[in-house]
């Protein structure tokens, strides 16, 4: 996990800046995680993270998607290449889906 993050550090720095703009109240960290939306699938569909981690979703499809976890978080509509970030401050399982294409589901497990 750490090796991967170091290797992707350059990318993470860019994301960290984006996250900092989107979420001014949180401090973006180098071990933040990414979920990609490709072909109507959240990848990875299941992600295990530590409390305090920020996850950024990027829509790489030609069709808009959303990221919605009932009562927890809800992105705006993400057009192609749009991003949404959320910082997980509490442990637990966060199931989420795309409210436009509800067969698209994922889960973030926060420990």
């Amino acid at each position: 996990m750490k090796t991967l993050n170091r290797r992707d550090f350059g990318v993470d720095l860019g994301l960290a800046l984006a996250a900092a703009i989107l979420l001014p109240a949180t401090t973006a960290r180098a071990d933040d995680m990414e979920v990609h939306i490709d072909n109507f699938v959240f990848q990875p569909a299941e992600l295990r993270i530590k409390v305090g981690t920020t996850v950024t979703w990027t829509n790489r499809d030609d069709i808009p998607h959303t990221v919605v976890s009932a009562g927890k978080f809800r992105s705006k509509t993400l057009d192609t290449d749009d991003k949404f970030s959320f910082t997980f401050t509490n442990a637990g399982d966060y199931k989420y889906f795309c409210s436009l294409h509800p067969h698209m589901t994922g889960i973030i497990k926060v420990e």
Partner: protein
Amino acid sequence: MSGHDHGEDGLSRRKVLECMTWAGTGVLWTITGGVPRSLGIIDSAQAATTAVPGMTFLQISDSHVGFDKPANPNALGTLEEAINKINAMPAKPSFMIHTGDITHLSKAAEFDNADRIISQSKLDVHYVPGEHDFLDENVKFYRERYGRGTKGAGWYSFDAGGVHFIGLVNVVDLKASGLGNLGAEQLAWLEDDLRGKSKSTPIVLFAHIPLWTVYPEWGWGTEDGGRALEYVKGFGSVTVLNGHIHQVMQKVEGNVTFHTARSTAFPQPAPGAAPSPGPMKVEDAKLRSMLGVASINFKQNEQRLAIIDTPIQG
């Protein structure tokens, strides 16, 4: 095409559909005696409709105004081509239904552009929303334009030419892992709307996502669509018109004919034929054969409406 038998229609209808698919623009629906029949390509549809009088209305769908990705960099342009095709029809249809995804991202300018082009048909248009029409932050643009006089998220019914038309909304309150959704309130309204209607009244149900289960793996179906179909079970002629899947698909089950129309923006793959249902990039020369509209003709004393899918080109 004008010859129509309701009993052994499987083969002939399939042939018709193939010919439509091959040709590619819209679906022209003809209601003859209660059952809509698809007439295939716009040109042969015209021939059929001029040969047999009755009420004819058009179905247009999935214009996705604002879409500019490789599968079709100019969705507004192909919408205009479809409208031009409609305007060139020798017999003017009575009205048009639009089965949703008018816009791609629910931007005000997209709605404005769609209206500017579609209004060139000078036809009354009855809309139902697609999921792409409810994306603005306050979810108000669609309602402000098309929601007047409708119930809930935009459902309503009206009568035309002896046919009872019901526009349903199955794109809101979708549940994780689920399909399209009508919801209890709309179903109760539907049951009430049909109460007291003569069973000989032809019924046309139209909604964005297919009310029948086309391919659940891609969300192509409606969770509680079966409930709606229960309510129309006793009627002699029921036609269900949908969009969303950007391709022609038809199924006949008893008195119910299910049909989906092409998009005017971009094609989508056949169920399971690609990793995802996303926009399908085809050769430029082929694109317009995979976009289109439908024309539906209704004639008294014939059970099925005749549906003709007409490509923009081909």
